[in-house]
């Protein structure tokens, strides 16, 4: 029998097998549902961001109009305080393909001079925690966890059925090589699933106009998911070759799925929690509370020297020549000092998190599912690092704001409309 015939026979068998067809259709429905959910969450995030930016724009316009009626330029310290500053993480156009860790973090933050990247408003959106535990039906979940089960349902009785019905030898006589016969039949399902998921990836990319701008991420994603499907396919193919009977094959395949998708990641997770227990961030709590209050209690001259530690160049400013701190500038000086303390405490937290991440990454060689998940999330900018970068961006805006507040005030700067617009750019205020 020609192998192309085996392939076609398998196609016909698939068409006629009601249980396989229904299972496949359920999977397609689940994919569509998951992508719809992804789009829905993406739109929700965009809407929230749009509302914030609209508010921001209104406030900026108010101040801009204020300049039109002025005869003398106002002090920088007064104007800078009125710039509505936000840190925003826009969802990637590929977001419907995987929500990843997006629901664990906030994606917008109002930045005030007292902000830090571990504030209360940096936590996730208001959500039902039990739903978060169960997670979302997102496309990445379907491909990483459900697709191998689909492959099991499609393939566990290839050869197993013939063995159960005791006509395997007949196949060997007709086809010559059982291995090749199994391979071609298996290949049909492998190709069907790979093409199906690639189709969805391309469809989402087209719908969100991401094909050209995100070509690198899309092709990496396609390569990643194809390799993942082939990885499971290879294991299942070997199981079929080495086992006897459909129920034994199904049992072994399910055991492999359990091992890779649940047991290994679960064990790594458990061990990681033992080695790196949830930290209560006492350094940060100290900086945020005790040390902040100590700074508030400092006399002005001590504040001045502490501020010089943060901004050594401040010594060159106009007011610094007096070797003391102007009462008007105390509050901003304190927030700059507190920000510096927070940054030091936060860097310790980030280092601890990084240690845990390194531990997780070290498990990738025997824990491929976690590797695939995190790689996938990184292409869609919904992994831990995407949100760490977002925190870094917030910190940079906050640093800039405090620097401007202190330097401009200490240099006794006044603000024209043009300077105001420069501030907006410096503080990344979007006016689009």
């Amino acid at each position, binding site marked *: 029998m020609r192998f192309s015939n085996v392939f076609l026979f398998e196609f016909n068998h698939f068409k006629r097998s009601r*249980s396989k067809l229904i299972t496949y259709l359920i999977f397609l429905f689940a994919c569509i*549902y998951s992508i719809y*959910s992804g789009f829905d969450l993406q739109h929700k995030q965009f809407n*929230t961001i749009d509302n914030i930016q609209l508010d921001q724009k209104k406030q900026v316009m108010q101040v801009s109009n204020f300049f039109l009626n002025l005869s003398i330029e106002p002090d920088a310290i007064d104007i800078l305080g009125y710039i509505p500053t936000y840190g925003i993480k826009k969802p990637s156009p590929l977001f419907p393909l995987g929500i990843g*860790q997006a629901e*664990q973090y906030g994606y917008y933050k109002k930045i005030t001079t007292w902000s830090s990247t571990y504030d*209360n*408003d940096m*936590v996730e959106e*208001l*959500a*039902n*925690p*039990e*739903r*978060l*535990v*169960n*997670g*979302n*039906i997102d496309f990445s979940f379907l491909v*990483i966890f459900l697709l191998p*089960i689909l492959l*099991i*349902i499609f393939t566990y009785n290839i050869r197993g*059925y013939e063995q*159960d019905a005791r006509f395997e030898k007949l196949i060997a006589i007709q086809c010559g090589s059982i291995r090749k016969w199994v391979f071609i039949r298996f290949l049909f399902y492998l190709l069907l699933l790979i093409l199906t998921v690639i189709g969805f990836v391309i469809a989402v990319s087209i719908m969100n106009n991401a094909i050209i701008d995100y070509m690198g991420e899309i092709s990496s994603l396609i390569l990643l998911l194809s390799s993942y499907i082939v990885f499971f396919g290879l294991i299942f193919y070997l199981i079929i070759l080495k086992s006897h009977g*459909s*129920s034994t094959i199904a049992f072994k395949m*399910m055991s492999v799925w*359990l091992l890779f998708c*649940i*047991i290994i*990641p*679960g064990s790594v*997770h*458990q061990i*990681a*929690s*033992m080695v*790196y*227990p*949830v*930290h*209560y*961030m*006492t350094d940060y*709590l*100290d900086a945020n*509370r005790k040390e902040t*209050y100590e700074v508030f*209690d400092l006399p002005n001259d001590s504040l001045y020297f502490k501020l010089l530690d943060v901004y050594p160049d401040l010594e060159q400013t106009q007011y610094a020549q007096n070797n003391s701190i102007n009462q008007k500038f105390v509050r901003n000086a304190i927030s700059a000092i507190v920000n510096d303390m927070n940054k030091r405490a936060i860097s310790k937290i980030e280092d601890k*998190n990084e240690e*845990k*991440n390194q531990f997780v*990454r070290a498990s990738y060689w025997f824990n491929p599912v976690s590797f695939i*998940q*995190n790689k996938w999330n990184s292409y869609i900018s919904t*992994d*831990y690092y995407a949100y760490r970068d977002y925190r870094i961006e917030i910190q940079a805006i906050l640093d800039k704001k405090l620097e401007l507040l202190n330097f401009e005030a200490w240099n006794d700067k006044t603000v024209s409309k043009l300077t105001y617009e420069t501030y907006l750019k410096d503080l990344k205020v979007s006016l689009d």
Partner: protein
Amino acid sequence: MKYLLINQWKGLFRNRLFMILFSVFTITLLLTTYLGIIQNETQIAAQQEAQEHIREQWDEMNHGNPHQSAHFGSYAFKPSTVLNSIDEGINSVTGNVIRLEGHRQNDVMFSEASQSLLVSKFGKLKPSLLLQFIIPLFLIFLSFSSYTQERDTGRLKLLIIQGASLKQVIFSKIISIWLIGLFLLLVTTLIQLVFNMNQLDVDTFLRLILLLLSYSIYYLVLINITILLSLLLRSSTAALSLTIVIWVLWVVFLPKMIGNTVEKIEPLPTRVAFQKQMDIDRSQGIDGHNPSDQRQEELLKKTLTQYGVDSIEELPVNFRGILMQADEEYGNSVWDKHFGSLYLQLQKQKNIYQLSGIINPFASLQSLSMGTAGTDMFHHLSFLSQAESYRRELIKELNYKWRDGNWDKAFFKSIKDFEYKLPNFLEFANKYLLDTLFLLLWSCMLLFLTKYSSEKTSIT
């Protein structure tokens, strides 16, 4: 029936693969339960250390006036329950610390899930993971092969010729496999009992028993449905495929899909909208017609009349303390309105989700498992509510001290730390009635269907 049961057990214990898997599961359960306990203890120790550190700061700080201390505030740490080592429920996605301070009700911070890369979508390898995902699958395969093998090898006919009825054969299989599941559950429970003997009280014991009962009913449902499908469907392949599809639907697909749908039926506000609404109410008065300066003036007049004096200077107490407490109480009414409706919405969501137990017994099991372990949303909300009550009492005490004057270091030292009291399970029992009812309904319905089908099926 007795002989059939013994025979079934003998058959199972003669099977090498079964013995290997049975031993692996027993050892894994022993190990995961033990590791879960160790991890829990590490967590409890870390939390105690953090709590002591915060207390030390409070005792050592230079308290200016009591209201300053109210701003300095305190922290409430969410403790790990003893049974957290079996099922950690929502604890990894919610934060574990709340800042308790004057003028505001904060949210929990620092969830474990946000502190690292994603590791496992199904959670840590705790006993709950084994009991909810892995052992059920083992029981499914055991149940499936125990009946189909008898049928396909013709042994079933032999048993019936010898005088056993199909119903007896079927139920002997159900009971024997269920007992295996029960044994594994008992192993987990015993380990918990042995290692947590010193922390065991009546409530924990009751929770543990209910947890065991919930899982045992769920296993009965699962074994029953597998054997029923093998009985009804002539093709073993179709029976196995359908059982796996049902398992995937129950365990993986439906919980996520129903969770998403519930959030659409009862949507929560975005954090920014929630905060904005609270800010508006906080600044304008809860009815929108009561600006704060007007309230302040009203309060001053009321206080002056109460003390029979004409000016603030003549007051025998510090008016700032009275004002701060009034402001606090006004703030509390705003938090009650907004956080109250948020918590109500969360509970509504949970109730709708619990209804899904009618099509998905796994949802009921999951809810009962987290509930009995004290790690579900109801317990989380109870923690939040206790922390908020503590905050209000703390701030009130500080504000009243500011009003009355005469504070010293001893006063600040006398302030007690927040202590979370895990609610007695019986107080919460009514919250899990639906889950219990659905699990029982499923098991009764399936037992009846199996009995009916085994009576109607003929072995030819």
